[in-house]
């Protein structure tokens, strides 16, 4: 099995370099989601993961040889746009939930919120 990680090929940045950055960002977001106790920190981790996903979509679109016209010609940017739209929805609803948690419990530390009603 060949094992190599060429970051620059033929005088240009390679696909693997972008995938590497996306993998690192994803892992950062994963750690933030798992290790943080502040719910807003978890939200920041989710944003990092979503950005890593968009970067993967864009890298595969750029290097994968998408058709120049017709369906799928703009798959990468369109996927990114839809991810950004859903991220906006998610952030708005999550912030609303967090604010209502804060009103009810006086904290957004996920460890200290054990019940669904006051």
């Amino acid at each position, binding site marked *: 099995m060949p094992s*190599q990680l060429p970051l620059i090929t033929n005088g240009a*940045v390679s696909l693997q370099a972008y995938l590497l950055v996306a993998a690192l960002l994803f892992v950062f977001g*994963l750690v933030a989601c798992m290790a943080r106790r502040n719910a807003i920190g978890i939200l920041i981790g989710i944003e990092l993961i979503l950005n890593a996903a968009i970067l993967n979509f864009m890298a595969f679109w750029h290097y994968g040889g998408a058709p120049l016209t017709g369906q799928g010609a703009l798959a990468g*940017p369109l996927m990114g*746009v839809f991810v950004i739209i859903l991220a906006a929805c998610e952030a708005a609803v999550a912030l609303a939930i967090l604010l209502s948690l804060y009103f009810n419990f006086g904290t*957004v530390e996920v460890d200290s919120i054990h019940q669904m009603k006051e």
Partner: protein
Amino acid sequence: METLQHGTILGFWLITALVLASGAVAAFARNIVQAAFSLFFTLLGMAGYYVLLGSDFLAVTQVIIYVGGILVLLMFGVLLTNRPLERAQRGTLRLYVLGAAAGAGLMLLVLLRIIATAQWRVAAEPIAISATVRPIGLALLSGYLLPFELAGLTLLLCLVGAAYLVRRKER
């Protein structure tokens, strides 16, 4: 052509340094305000990546919606819910932090292995940097009309839901 390529590579390394450094701060900083501010630079760097990868529209969308919208929302959340009393206790490395680090490290190893060993199907000629605003607009209102409308509906539902969640309760 040669200078353009060198510039692209230089830009890639600069953006990578910015994104990874600020992303690490966003993920690991103990102070949540620092983390949110650091996320600002990560999101800006991602917009730079999208320019390098050939979509100006997505880069501008990222700056306007992510940096101008979602991040401001996050900052509001931080400032509205942050209490100085809730400083994270220093020096207490809890067990679940170790567990998270171990799990994420294993995940990173798996991802690195896949990236290094997979046979990626790479086209001979990557997509050139071009204006994508007009084709994206046409695509959204023709081939992608259903997802576009569904996204609009989702946004409306989220708006209503968020407003419902934080309304003043009648006592």
